[in-house]
């Protein structure tokens, strides 16, 4: 019971902080950013029901997100032209959820026989099919232009028109909290546990009498339902939907968020959605190579930290619970390791930026600004500096990483002996 109140109060605190945020950062840029984050948090957590909880890697989850968006836009337009009866804007995520659930059940039925790589391949096939359809069935999807809408339709209860961005933000925030709480509860139900069991060991799950395919199908449909709700909010937020929202690019983006944040932990995707949305909005203006950095980060996470950022943090949970001093003793080796990596990264970023600069911008000029400093991309000196930084970074990493790992191993072994002594 105490645990329940503890976690409940955490939720309340997060909700209050999220509600105050737009009052502090009240520029239109940050409001748009916060709204986008809210939508993508729902989408990413929904996606993680599949990837993290159910063990199904999908390259096509944007289908349900995008189709729900298209449906919502058509209904909004219908209400605007008074060909459809009025439906309260507040409840639009329900429309998206129904659309997502419908298509999710349909596609899930044929594709969830096996998980793993075969499932991933099929999901990509479906995604490509729907993307191709958006360009063919122009009457519904309107091709590459997408569809516009106006979200201010019908009566205005309590004077809320959902015209101003701030009202949409609170709508998104409300549904974000509801959806995330629901998805959290689902992970705690017997169904959620069964979904984990099917992920970890399908044979055993089948032996105790569960239909593995059925469990996967249900997880797929539920996940699509929440993705659909997110798609509806996305449509309301932008008042526009285009073919890219059903495409493999959108599916890849949500995969990046969920996995870099940490697919193994419930909070991971939320961290990933917030972090990557922020970086996407800010870094994309600063550097041309943003997608390259994203790809490199993702591959690095897959290779060295498959638990994602959340996994790295959770790794230290038992150490923090046993003895705070142990955790503090880890700070020094970690700082050394991180700073040596950063040295190498600065060099790598410098090289990449200069290469991009040389290939995209006219050859005549040579001044490129990297880290608020001007470098001459044509001069040998700036290349030598960055290459030297990379080499120093690699050299230092080789020294400091074993040290960091050693101290972690030491800390965890202390924890183990403490536990076995109890």
């Amino acid at each position, binding site marked *: 019971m105490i645990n329940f109140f503890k976690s409940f109060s955490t939720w309340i605190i997060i909700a209050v902080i999220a509600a105050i945020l737009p009052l502090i950062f009240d520029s239109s840029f940050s409001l748009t950013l916060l709204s986008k984050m809210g939508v993508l948090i729902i989408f990413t957590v929904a996606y993680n029901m599949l990837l993290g909880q159910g*063990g199904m*890697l999908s*390259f096509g989850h944007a289908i349900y997100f995008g189709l729900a968006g298209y449906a919502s836009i058509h209904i909004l337009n219908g209400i605007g032209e008074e060909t459809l009866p009025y439906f309260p804007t507040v409840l639009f995520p329900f429309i998206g959820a129904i659309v997502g659930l419908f298509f999710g059940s349909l596609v899930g039925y*044929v*594709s969830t*026989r*096996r998980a*793993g*790589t*075969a499932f*991933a*391949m*099929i999901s*990509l*096939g*479906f*995604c*490509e*099919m729907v993307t*191709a*359809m958006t*360009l*063919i*069935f*122009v*009457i*519904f999807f309107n091709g590459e232009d997408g569809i516009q809408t106006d979200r201010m339709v019908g009566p205005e209860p309590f004077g809320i028109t959902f015209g101003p961005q701030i009202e949409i933000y609170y709508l998104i925030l409300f549904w974000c909290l509801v959806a995330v709480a629901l998805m959290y509860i689902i992970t705690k139900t017997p169904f959620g546990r069964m979904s984990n069991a099917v992920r970890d060991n399908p044979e055993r799950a089948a032996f105790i009498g569960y239909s593995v395919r059925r469990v996967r199908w249900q997880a797929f449909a539920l996940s699509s339902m929440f993705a659909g709700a997110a798609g509806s909010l996305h449509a309301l937020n932008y008042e526009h939907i285009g073919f890219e929202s059903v495409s*493999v690019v959108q599916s*890849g983006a949500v*995969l990046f968020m969920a*996995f870099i944040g940490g697919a193994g932990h419930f909070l991971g995707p939320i961290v990933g959605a917030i972090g990557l949305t922020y970086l996407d909005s800010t870094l994309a203006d600063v550097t041309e*190579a943003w*997608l*390259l950095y*994203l*790809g*490199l980060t*993702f*591959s690095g996470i*897959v*290779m060295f930290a*498959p638990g994602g950022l959340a996994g790295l943090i959770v790794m230290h949970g038992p150490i923090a619970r046993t003895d705070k001093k142990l955790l503090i003793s880890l700070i020094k080796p970690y700082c050394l390791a991180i700073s040596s990596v950063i040295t190498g990264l600065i060099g790598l970023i410098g090289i*990449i930026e200069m*290469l*991009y600069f040389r*290939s*995209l911008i006219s050859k005549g000029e040579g001044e490129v600004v990297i880290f608020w400093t001007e470098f001459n991309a044509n001069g040998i000196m700036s290349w030598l500096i960055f290459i030297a930084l990379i080499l120093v970074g690699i050299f230092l990493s080789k020294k400091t990483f074993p040290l960091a790992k050693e101290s972690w191993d030491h800390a965890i072994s202390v924890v183990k002996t403490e536990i076995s002594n109890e």
Partner: protein
Amino acid sequence: MDVILFTLFNGLLYGMLLFMLSSGLTLIFGMMGVLNFAHASFFMLGAYFAYQISKYIGFIPALFIAPLIIAFCGAMVEKYALRRVHKFGHVAELLFTFGLFYIIEELVQMIWGKVPVGYHVPEYMDFTLFSMSGMGYQAYAMFTLVVSIAMFIVLFSVLTKTRAGLIIQAALTHPEIVSSLGHNVPKVFMLVFGLGCALAGLAGVLAGNTLGTEPSMALSLGPIVFVVIVVGGLGSLKGALVASILIGIVQTTAISLDYSINNFIELIGFSVDIESLWRILIDLTISQIAPILPYLLLVLMLIFRPRGLFGNRDV
């Protein structure tokens, strides 16, 4: 008649190209369980390398050098990255290659720019070989067809007739036993991965100048290659061949067919006068829906025969 022959010819050409891509992918998948998302990226790299090499020393050397470089790149990817990820399972390997796909696409943009590069058919093969009823068949297309068929014969005989091929086939199904016989199975895997990538690279060299060499070419062909290996049956080389040619012919035929459902309805003597949405649906011609046909085939296959044409296990 001539038109049919012509379409079949083009379909076969496209099919053989798909096979060159999918054979490597299905070999790697059957052998190691690794689904290489970046496979089509190696195809793209093949085209770009060929462009760069043919700019300096000509097309024919590029035909040999580019696949070799790609094979080396692929082997390095396997040795230094995939092998490390292997312990986290096949999904992690797929995720890694997904990241690699992004990296290669961005690197290509970084080096060669975002617009298509001028990789052209060599001049001495840019003439009409023969023509039937007004349509000419380019000599280069014939050259591509001959090279891809030759490649197929070589690949098939290496896999079935030589000692190395037998070891590869054995490692496909019984890696432990092959390894206890004293063969270095990880090395075999690395070589097969390199070989698969080289095949994709060769396809890139051959097709880059007709399909266009641009950074988005990997994304436009990659998903179709996945469809081919699911339809053919996972890990089956024979299935990949049949499915490639099937999809090649279906797609090239569909583009030239200007019939819609409405035409058929009128043909049997009915006329439909419905308005609105359905009207547009039945007026769609086959050539308009050509891009989704491979995926439609995938869905139908999943519903009616989940193991694919020649596969031995359900997808």
